[in-house]
């Protein structure tokens, strides 16, 4: 189950810089930790985060095992037009989880 907390203001003024916070539920297992049996627990991390705004990529990030479990990423973007922001988190096995948020720009 994809569980993410995202805050995008519902309304913004055109040209306003808005701050977006995202929190994604994920263990970010580093691949460096031994488990109960002494074997390394396989790596399971989000490697790529992308935010598109009405289809255009406005921000992205590449994450390594040093990023905390349940990764928190905050960034800014300019409120240009009303529409949809799509957030995607892709793990090292290629699985992608997607969440969307809409914004009304006046």
């Amino acid at each position: 189950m994809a569980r993410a907390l995202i805050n995008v203001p519902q309304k913004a003024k055109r040209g306003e810089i808005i701050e977006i916070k995202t929190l994604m539920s994920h263990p970010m297992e580093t691949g460096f930790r031994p488990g109960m049996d002494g074997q390394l627990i396989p790596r399971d991390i989000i490697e790529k985060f992308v935010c598109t705004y009405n289809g255009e990529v406005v921000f992205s990030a590449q994450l390594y095992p040093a990023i905390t479990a349940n990764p928190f990423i905050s960034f800014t973007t300019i409120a240009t037009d009303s529409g949809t922001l799509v957030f995607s988190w892709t793990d090292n096995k290629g699985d992608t989880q997607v969440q969307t948020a809409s914004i009304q720009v006046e």
Partner: protein
Amino acid sequence: MNTTRRQFSLLAAGASFALVTPARATPDSMKESIQAFTGGRPVTDGRIKFEISLLVENGNSVPLSVLVDSPMTKDNHVTRIGLFNEKNPMPDVAIFNLTPRSGRAQIATRMRLNDTQFITAIAEMSDGTYFSARSGVIVTMPACVEE
């Protein structure tokens, strides 16, 4: 969920074994990672406000933020912000790709710190120049952990 005393000793033994077989970044491997990020181009100190606690309670989750002084216009903006460390298993932490639509060159995240060390933030500008800031963090050990 119960851990017997014997399992506990085994866990403790496993933990100390893990300590003597480190796969670790070093100040040198951090330099290599930074070189790969900049393509070997010179890096100047400044233009970055890098905020991270000097003393953290748990290295599993250390909040940080980076703000780069940039007009963020089409012709003059920050293209990437890279974070690097010198004592985690890997020197790379994260790379953030910004655009003129970012409005401000500002990011925040949370990172893991294996140990007391220096963290470096590097900003890549649209004109191909690089700026950096560095911050030392002391990591304290929590008391009464499970294993």
